[in-house]
């Protein structure tokens, strides 16, 4: 009796078994494709955090198996990256590595080459850090992983490319919106039908990739306080502004080395007004960030002690 209701409960679990997918999450990617046509015309894909490989399977079946000639097949390039090895999948090149590490990014790039026409058209990431059961921590770690995946995407995506990644949508996602909008013209959250309604799992679907003028792709190690220095490594002014922002949403500009890194929690009205003016008068700040910040500053100014 118990078994019947259990089997009945999850239609996608059963379907996945029937159709030979390695995990029910395969349907999530297919549903995202149904909604956004992310596979149309795509030949070169990177699957980050691929194991056990259900998304790679989808990519293989949809992009590789559909090719009619060997020549076409040779043009399809699917690279699956994960920490652990997985069983081989037709037409999928496997790379073992940690996506938070620079060496991994370099290995992926090697497979694509420098030329724009050889870069990936789609980067997908269904990875989730091991869940601890502590909700806030899980969300935080997922966010960190997403930033790593995004930074890899900035290396390997061709202009106009797409990026799809899992996110736990809880407390703190407004910031993430802006981070994604830094690199993509179109950005949406999507919850496929096959994702359990009760879970906070969503997917970011980002399309039309562009590099902000002057930005040089680099691997961002999220949440490190040395982020500002790292941004300096590229020598790009844009990086200096954007890298800290992408990593931990710090919009107050570059933190100088000698400054205390601990935020002063009761800033005076003058301090806030100064920061506000500095950002609003900066021509290089994207307008949407300014809009976003405007409300925050107005509220802060109202609350601050004069």
């Amino acid at each position, binding site marked *: *009796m*118990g078994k*019947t*209701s259990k089997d*009945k*409960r999850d239609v996608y679990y059963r379907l996945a078994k029937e159709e030979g997918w390695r995990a029910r999450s395969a349907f999530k990617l297919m549903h995202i494709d149904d909604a956004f046509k992310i596979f149309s015309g795509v030949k070169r894909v990177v699957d980050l955090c691929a194991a056990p490989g259900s998304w790679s399977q989808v990519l293989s079946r949809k992009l590789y198996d559909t090719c009619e000639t060997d020549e076409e097949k040779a043009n399809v390039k699917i690279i699956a990256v994960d*920490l652990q090895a997985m069983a081989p999948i037709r037409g999928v090149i496997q790379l073992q590595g*940690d996506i*938070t590490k620079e060496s991994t990014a370099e290995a992926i790039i090697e497979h694509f080459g420098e030329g724009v026409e050889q870069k990936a058209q789609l980067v997908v990431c269904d990875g989730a*850090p*091991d869940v*601890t*059961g*502590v*909700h*806030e*921590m899980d969300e*935080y*770690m997922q966010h*960190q*992983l997403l930033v790593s995946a995004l930074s890899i995407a900035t290396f390997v995506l061709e202009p106009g490319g797409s990026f799809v990644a899992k996110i736990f*949508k*809880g*407390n*703190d*996602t*407004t910031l993430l919106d802006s981070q994604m909008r830094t690199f993509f013209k179109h950005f949406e959250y999507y*919850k496929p039908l096959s994702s359990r*309604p009760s879970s*906070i799992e969503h997917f970011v679907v980002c399309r039309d990739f562009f590099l902000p003028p002057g930005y040089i792709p680099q691997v961002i*190690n*999220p*949440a*490190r*306080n*040395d982020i500002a*220095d790292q941004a300096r*490594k590229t020598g790009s002014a844009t990086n200096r502004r954007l890298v800290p922002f992408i990593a*931990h949403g*710090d919009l107050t500009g570059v933190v*100088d*080395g*000698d*400054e*205390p*890194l*601990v*935020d002063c*929690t*009761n800033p005076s009205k003058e301090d806030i007004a100064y920061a506000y003016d500095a950002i609003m008068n900066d021509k290089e700040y994207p307008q949407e960030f300014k809009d976003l910040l405007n409300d925050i500053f107005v509220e802060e100014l109202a609350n601050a002690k004069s």
Partner: protein
Amino acid sequence: MEIKSSLFSDAFGLHVKNNDLLIGVGNQAFLYTKGSRIELPQRTRNKKVHGFVHSSSDDLVLLYSENEFYIFLYHSEEGQFQLVYEGETKDWINAATFLENEEKTRFVLHMAHSTVLYLQWISNSSSLQDSVDLDSEKKYSQRGDCIVLELACCTDYSMLYYTCLHGSTYDQLVIMSGNAFGELLIWRPQFAIARDDDGNEVSGSKTYPLLLRLQAHNGVILSIAYNAAKQLLITTSDDRSVKFWRVANTETKDYVDWKTPNSVSPMFSCFGHTARVMCSIVMEYGNDIYVASGGEDSYMCIWNSSGELLLKRRQQFGAPIWQLAYNPTTSTIYSGGSTGNVLTYNVKALLEGKTNNQLTQLCPLDSFIETKNEFIGNVQFLSHTTIIGLSNRNRLFFINLFTDSLESQNWQLLDNFPSYKCTVLETKNEIIATCGYQRVTLHRFSVKSQQLEQLFDGPRLKGTIRSFHFLATDLYLVSDDLGNCELLKGNDLHVEAEISLVHCREPWITAALLVSPKILLLSNRNGLIMLFIRNTGHNQEFTLISQLKHIHGNMGSTFLNLVTLTSKEACILSGGHEPLLKYLRLNLNDYKLTISLRKCVPLAWIEASLSDDIVLGFNDNHFVAWSQEQDVLIQLQCGGGHRCWDYHLLDKELHIIFVKQKQVFFHHYRLCDKESSQGISIPRNRWHTRSCNSLRLLGQIVSTDSAHFLASAGDDNVIKITKYFDGNAIQCAEVHTHISSVRHLTIYPLKSKNYLASWLIFSVGGRAQLCINQIDRTQSNDCRITELSSHTLRNPTVADNGVVEARLMAIDVSRDASSGYFMLYIANADGKITIHRWQIEKPSTLEFLHQIDLHRCPLQLRWLPDPSLLLIATTNGEIYVYDNEFRTKMLQFQLHETGVNTLDAYVDRDNIHILSGGDDENVKHTTINLYSMDINQKAFAALHNAQVNALALYCHSKPDGEKTDLFGFTCSMDKQIYRINLQTSEYFRVGYTCIDDIKGILIDENQLAYLYGSGLQVLPLS
């Protein structure tokens, strides 16, 4: 009067400060001292408290929550905390420590990507002098500043789930962390390396090399504990193991060179948990060292230094254990759990080697008596210290305990016992009854003189006697394997009455209770409960009046205890071979016997009930004593539940004997009233151990009544009735009728003559189950539950009625005023909405009336009585409006883009107001005109940035009878609470909740909000 709020949420923070205890529950923090509780100022902190540390001078307490930290000055004389600094970091703080041998105000924070902030708090000393004066303004004022002494990074920057900091100075600091790949990483802020590619050292922060990387686990390392003196390191992980590591000093033996590969070497891998091991601590007791680990499975394990499991105990009643702390002075372990409870357990006796599981083997027969292959096969207590044993050769022995050491005690033969093949041995108050084939013998054994006196020995019944029960003084009941049963009286055992049992295989009696001289309740071995009434006529025979089949499956009750007896009714407790206790109610007017309530217990087989709190029984191969208040008290490996055993309780001293492999074992245990009050007392909440899915307010009975009664149900399969009064939640009753998670419940008030108030609770959930229970509030203000019925809904259109339908998602009810029938509207996860008819007089009958199929999983269902309309909202965001008989679909339209997670409706004169929240993060206010059915919609997309799961409409009647504006309160996974004026469409944020996975919000007439999900928060909103 200030309205008190309360919060049951994760207790992550737990820290022993001298003999006091710092506890973080959700975003709140408290210091518990002996006899008092002090709250640490909260101010704007809304993130959950994850940990505390205190300075060696005791007056500084550092609290960290996610990426924020707070410094408090503790004025012990006033018993008050003063917040002196608030700070924020850019990464998750996962560890902190004060540096003991440095200036008292120096501390380090460690963040989740191997960075350390070395900080010093500098007080504004002049203002500190007068800080004793703690008026509310000054209490929160920023006093002093934090300066950064160093920012240190490690060359490894993987995401760290746990970090353990060790060292009393910054120079000696050792940082041990675990990452998601099961690697143990160790580094020290010593010997900085140039970090730049060009070899330039960069100012502001320093980078230090990783000293050790060790593949420690096959999963996330969730905790690390280190004891330098004993050179012991403990790691626990996702892979369910607790690992012991030996830390080797260098040859000079004064420090550890972490760089050498052998500095950390594996000792043991210990397995005791069945889920993630979340926390661990190292405890010193005497010269020995012990380790305690706590798991998501709610179990705490205690290991000795050889990696042996000394104790495994369910500590948090099923809720995950997040944190453990140990007070060495009192040998107390504190555990913090996901329900916000901090529970104590004293390990003194255990660590002294007096384990609770110690068994004494009584001497075998042949060690004192000249005999071969003879052993005790059956044992019974005759008094607290005298045990009677019957051997396999049908000889009777006794043994006295406690006159000397147990081992030297020997069995003594009672040689005037007539030896025959005995099938039954029962004792009570010095009376020994033995039975065999057509034979009963009764003896009195005087404990004082140790003499056996025969009272009766003679033929009774026609077959082999299988049971003998002591019903009352001088009144006995015997039954045999042919189904004969007799009531015997007096020392001559004359047959008082013959009782004709129901004929079946193995018909004898397993439990008997004489409720009153005229009422006899029996259970046979096939699980049948039989009620016999004695005729008043001159033959005084017993007549079978009613029976209950299979109340414990196919096995008989193991005991029937009389709980209460009034002139109107009797309440009887029955236990059997299943993990359920059942309360039977016997109406003494019409002799109607019903199961009124069941109670789930974590025992596979219940044998006895000592009190309302404690039951004895078996699990697998263990004997278990379980307490509702304290969970498992005793767990003894005995080999299984089929064996001969007995217990005796005298003045809280519990004695247990049982036979295992031809040997007799003895155990004694002292029951205590709870953890002894010499320590800190922390009240325990009894909220759901898993997510609460549905909550209803039972409403005030009289307007002066400031208490509210809540009916709640959740994923722990339990329905709870809780009284909420002045910040305190007191559990009144629990209902255990659901076999799977409860999705939704609704209540219906009844008119009641005998009680202050009565309600019906209709609940639905997994395994297509519908339960209907009645709750009565008695004059003495207790809550009395009556289980009316439990139904499994089957698909009426499918010929094969065996097919169980999917989960039931929602229910609402209406009552026909003239006929008294209830109409039950039930939403089934497979898309079918059904109407059933039910009446309180025939609770077990559920009459199917009609069904519609939406082909979509319904999430919300609401019956509106006045316009007689039914609202249904589904996972694809649509809403349907039907008439009361499902004959006409009045409306169907897209309400949200995706699933409608929450919905509330209010009817004013001409309009239905619907406020709804969805997966699309939108809140919508929809008005439907009742005459034209015109729809008017307004969206509030800007309120929340995560799925909206909770909302409630609020319209309050002013004293003059006029209504206020219609308000909506909304809450989402982003934890923000908004208030919307639906007349003006103005909205503003009114608060914040700590409740994860929010499932709903209710507002009472005092604008007190009840937010539920993973926990409960009651919050004043006005």
